[in-house]
């Protein structure tokens, strides 16, 4: 096989494997970091938008709309304030709502939040628009003390239909390392359904009837008031004070098949004027949340760009330092007939190939890195992020990397261009 310019470049790169490897690695890390951040930024937003589904309004007694969304949709913390169920009924009748589903958060099982709600949660609410709930096994709860498990929690703990469990009244850390509250062994819950994955935070929750949650709370109330010898609390023992909810998923009446409606804003404005409730538009709050974190996002992107720039500098330095050792080789190539321009091109090509190799390894690393980060986010935070690398993003970052690498090769290439042949063919007579 004939020698070509690329053969000369390849031999130059493989002739110093350590410096080439380290330089390629530094470029690859920068590319991977940048692609991972870009990938997670887009897919993170998409993941956050999943879970709010066809909800128009989220009503709660939380101090702010953003906290309301984070707690009631993403299970960040158990809400600290509650609304009386009577108020929910009042809102249902006073506003043009298609549905209003009460939710009560505060109990948990092995660190997984348990959302108490009504069967409508599964029949009317869709975690993603056009993607209703699906059951891998079983059915919706129909009676108190029946539980439906989200896909992730069922998988994580190997839950099966008919399995019995005790809920913890109160909050607990997600990883189960520090559980607060107390276990209600008086009330045995039975798993009656296991959900299909939705790609949202709901996958890591359990669901039961709102009456079940009220009974647990009422039992605590009765124990405190009447002492330990009371009979087991039932639905019949509930008072209006027990019938509290921490949130309401609501949808304003719209035309069939339409997601948006001019009514939504009107209802929102009307509810916002009500001092008893905090009302949030989940999609708007997610957008605001991303506005808040976008600054951090930009800092990370800036850091990734700085790492990429520094890897460009390392290409420059490596080529510059090796240039001193290669002047004789360049002089010999010139004697053999290589023009100055051709030598210049060889060095720039060498730098660009480092960029190409770094970009290729970086893209591969980004795939792996994205999968690792999404796995960590899913297991630690319950946020399902599917890293996606659009070919346009990959192509742009790769092209920028190769261009930067080639630019980094310019100074060494100019040095090679100006190499004195006669001086570097010594020993001279």
């Amino acid at each position: 096989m004939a020698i070509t310019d690329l053969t000369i470049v390849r031999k130059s790169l493989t002739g110093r494997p350590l410096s080439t490897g380290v330089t390629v690695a530094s470029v690859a890390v920068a590319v991977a970091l940048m692609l991972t951040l870009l990938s997670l930024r887009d897919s993170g937003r998409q993941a956050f938008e999943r879970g709010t589904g066809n909800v128009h309004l989220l009503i709660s007694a939380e101090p702010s709309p953003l906290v309301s969304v984070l707690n009631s949709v993403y299970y960040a913390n158990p809400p600290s304030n509650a609304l009386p169920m009577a108020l929910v009924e009042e809102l249902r009748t006073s506003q043009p709502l298609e549905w209003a589903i009460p939710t009560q958060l505060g109990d948990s099982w092995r660190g997984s939040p348990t959302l108490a709600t009504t069967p409508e949660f599964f029949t009317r609410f869709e975690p993603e628009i056009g993607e209703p709930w699906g059951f891998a096994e079983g059915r919706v709860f129909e009676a108190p003390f029946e539980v439906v498990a989200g896909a992730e929690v069922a998988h994580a703990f190997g839950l099966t239909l008919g399995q019995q469990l005790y809920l913890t009244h109160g909050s607990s850390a997600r990883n189960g390392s520090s559980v607060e509250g107390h276990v209600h062994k008086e009330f045995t819950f039975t798993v009656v359904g296991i959900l299909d994955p939705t790609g949202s935070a709901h996958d890591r929750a359990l669901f039961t009837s709102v009456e079940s949650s009220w009974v647990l709370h009422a039992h605590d109330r009765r124990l405190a008031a009447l002492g330990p010898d009371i009979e087991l609390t039932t639905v019949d023992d509930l008072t209006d004070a027990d019938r509290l909810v921490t949130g309401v998923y609501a949808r304003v009446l719209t035309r069939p098949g339409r997601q948006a409606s001019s009514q939504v804003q009107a209802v929102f404005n009307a509810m916002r004027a009500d001092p008893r409730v905090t009302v949030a538009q989940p999609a708007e709050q997610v957008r605001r949340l991303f506005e808040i974190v976008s600054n951090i996002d930009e800092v990370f992107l800036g850091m990734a760009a700085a790492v990429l720039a520094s890897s460009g500098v390392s290409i420059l330095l490596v080529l510059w330092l090796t240039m001193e050792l290669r002047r004789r080789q360049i002089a010999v190539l010139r004697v053999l007939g290589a023009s100055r321009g051709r030598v210049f091109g060889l060095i720039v090509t060498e730098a660009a190939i480092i960029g190409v190799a770094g970009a290729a390894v970086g893209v591969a690393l980004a795939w792996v890195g994205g999968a690792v980060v999404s796995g960590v986010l899913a297991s630690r935070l319950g946020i399902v992020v599917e890293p996606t690398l659009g070919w346009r993003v990959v192509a742009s970052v790769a092209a920028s990397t190769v261009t930067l690498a080639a630019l980094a090769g310019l100074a060494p290439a100019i040095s090679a261009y100006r190499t004195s042949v006669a001086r570097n063919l010594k020993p001279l007579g």
Partner: protein
Amino acid sequence: MPPALDITDLRYRYRASDEWILRIDRLSLDAGERVLVTGESGRGKSTLLHLIAGVLDIPRDAALGSGTIRVAGADLHALRGAARDRFRGQHLGMVFQTFNLLHGFTAVENVMTALLFSNIPSREHESRALALLERLGVERPGALPDELSVGQQQRVAVARALACEPAIVLADEPTASLDPARASEAMDLLVSACAERNAALVCVSHDPAMAERFERRECLNALADASAARTGGEDA
């Protein structure tokens, strides 16, 4: 057929020097002819080779240099940039004291690298290089320079210089790093290989033992003195 080398009225001096380092009125060499160039150290022997190869320019400032160097009939210094480099690759071969083989390139790859800059079709490069190496007695064409003996490296260097069928081969102290026995063998190889290809050979050497192999010997001191005598030192 034009001479392989024709030097006319060559003057060359370093910027810091008051006198001509090279002063040659005429030096001509036909195809297949060989000449040994001798001279004191610092008299400009390698500089002459670099001027012939076109890797040093004849200064445009007449106070620093002048003259014409024709290789295979072409005025090398009238060519500029890539055209001169291309011409050099196609018509000139060089052998160096330390061989200057490309590290990381096998023997055959070293020869093929010279062919990269020629007009010879690339599909012929490998077969040509292998045939030439075999003809010159290189036993392991796939070996790297470090894996070859000094004698074998010398043969690879000669093969590389002859790969493009040059009109002229320039050899700069080609035996200076060899012991006498190997030097003699290497010189035999260089002379016979050039003769076989009808390539002119300009060899610069300090080694007096080399003289008997050359029918022409030119001493740079003598050439300069003759020139000075002819002009009466007017252009000194």
